[in-house]
């Protein structure tokens, strides 16, 4: 095969474009991770080194144990700063985790039977209720943030995990129902018919026949619910005022609001906060992609 010079140029340009895109997408992650392993004095050089020259895990050790990194003991014209608030990140991420996991469980428990009823059963108000549930997500978050605050306060749930579990469930269940309804509508129904003929009731059909068939859909729906809750910021900001109850995004935003914050420690916080979603996004890439694709191509 002779190489066509035009095709060669085209291939080189396309590959260059891919490289640029990879740098744009992955660069920020790599930089923050690299920064989290640098000493403050190294990071504040002009220009900073992209790859740490003296990589150190001191910053991580400080966040988890409180032992002050050695780079902060160096005195010179660079001021050393230490942000004690950075140590709040571990408990905050634990809060995020508990809340997101509870939201995931509630989504599976509530949305699966509802989706089955929407996809397979015929009942009065079905279309109306379905449209109401989906339409509820069209409310801009900012418009209801204050009312949510009032509801949570009158339920005496301020600064509790339960408040965010409730709000995030209301936020994620409509998507889960929609997603699972599409999923169930698109699987063959012969098995269910056979189950019903054999005398199973609807609940048994759902439990023994439908759930095993829609497992990939349930996994994707769980991941979406988990991520939405884990990443949510506005309501968490409004509904938690005590440091002990605040979630990862809220704590990180308030740490970084301090103009004297330590850049290395904030990099540690950012790195720690993005580990769970990154693990999810990489390990479940196929299911997430298929799930997202199905929402736009299924009819």
């Amino acid at each position, binding site marked *: 095969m002779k190489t066509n010079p035009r095709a060669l140029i085209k*291939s080189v340009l*396309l*590959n260059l474009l*891919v490289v640029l*895109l*990879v740098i*744009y*997408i992955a660069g920020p992650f790599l*930089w*923050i991770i690299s920064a989290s392993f640098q000493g403050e004095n190294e*990071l504040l050089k*002009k*220009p900073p080194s*992209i790859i740490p020259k003296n990589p150190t895990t001191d910053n991580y050790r400080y966040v988890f144990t409180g032992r002050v990194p050695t780079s902060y003991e160096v005195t010179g014209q660079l001021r050393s700063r230490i942000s004690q608030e950075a140590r709040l990140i571990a408990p905050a991420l634990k809060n995020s985790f508990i809340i997101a996991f509870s939201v995931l469980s509630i989504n599976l428990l*509530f949305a699966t039977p*509802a989706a089955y*009823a*929407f996809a397979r*059963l*015929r009942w009065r108000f079905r*279309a109306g*209720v379905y*449209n109401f549930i989906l339409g*509820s997500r*069209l409310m*801009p978050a*900012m*418009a*209801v943030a*204050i*009312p*949510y605050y009032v*509801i949570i306060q009158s339920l005496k749930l301020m600064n509790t995990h339960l408040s965010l579990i409730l709000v995030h469930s209301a936020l994620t269940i*409509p998507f889960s129902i*929609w997603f699972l309804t*599409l999923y169930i*509508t698109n699987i063959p*129904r012969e098995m269910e018919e056979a189950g019903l003929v054999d005398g199973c*009731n*609807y*609940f048994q059909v759902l439990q023994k026949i439908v759930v095993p068939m829609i497992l990939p859909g349930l996994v994707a729906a769980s991941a979406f619910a988990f991520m939405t809750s884990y990443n949510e*910021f506005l309501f968490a900001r409004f509904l938690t005022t005590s440091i002990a109850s605040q979630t990862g*995004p809220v704590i990180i*935003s308030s740490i970084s609001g301090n103009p004297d914050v330590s*850049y290395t420690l*904030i990099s540690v916080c950012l790195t720690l906060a*993005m580990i769970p*979603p990154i693990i*999810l*996004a*990489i390990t479940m*890439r196929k299911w*997430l*992609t298929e799930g*997202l*694709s199905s*929402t*736009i*191509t299924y*009819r």
Partner: protein
Amino acid sequence: MAVTLTQKETPPQKPRRSMGGFYPYGSVLPALLVIVLFTIYPVFYAVRISFYRYLLTKPNSHPFIGLKNFEDVITSYYFKNSLINTGIYTIASVTGVILFGLVVAMLLNTKMRSVGALKIIILLPWAIPAVVAGLMWKWILNSDFGILNGILYSLGAIKSYIPFLADPTLAKLSLILAHIWKEGPLAAIFFLAGLQLIPNEFYEAAKIDGGGGLTVFRHITLPLLRPILLVVLVYETMTAILTFDIVYVLTGGGPADSTSLISWFAYAEIYKSLNLGTGIALSIVIALITLVLIILYMRALGTEDTIS
């Protein structure tokens, strides 16, 4: 999530005489209760508060003032400013997200070996919290120690560090850059799903007819991608108009209100001016604007459906 209503639900193929009695109602009830609690009451409450003067600095006096809150909001300079900012931001970032999504999707749809890496990392920006994404960019763009300044400086592209987030125009651009980074991947996944639905024969036929890359894109890819393009357009427009998290951490509406988008302005009314009445009136205006846009888009989608 705005795309939801445009989906047609398929009715069950066989009408069922026995409907399981109360079973369907029981299955929907728990989910419905949670959603009703956080939908119906908040909306009524918000509408009610918007007709009262509700200053957190005066906790004991809430006189009824009719539409005064709406009047105050709509006539204020800051509202006009944030509306213009939101308009510019939305047009620029939606265009950016769609171009990014199309380019990435078309690359992912080729058999090039280098796209393997792109495939693995494409979901990452979408997966992380917007607050984290905003802060990553904030440190990258930092005017004293930022890596972007460092790289440009080392390459000799700039003589001194640029204060990206302190200049009104550059701050807007930075916000858009971070937004495209965060939102583009989802658009790419959606477009890729659309591209994979286009049968290969179409491209082969075009090749036989001697169509070049651009012709094929204009006459085959784009028309067939149109329904998905519209859904992505609706979704991304809503996302851009309601952008809040990234503004909160990246620019805080500044400098000089140049990145004060409408959601940020509502937040500032509530938190900084401690004026619930105007804050909520503003939120209702936002809700109405988005509602009008959704209806317009759904009209467009509706006609699209009848054509195809």
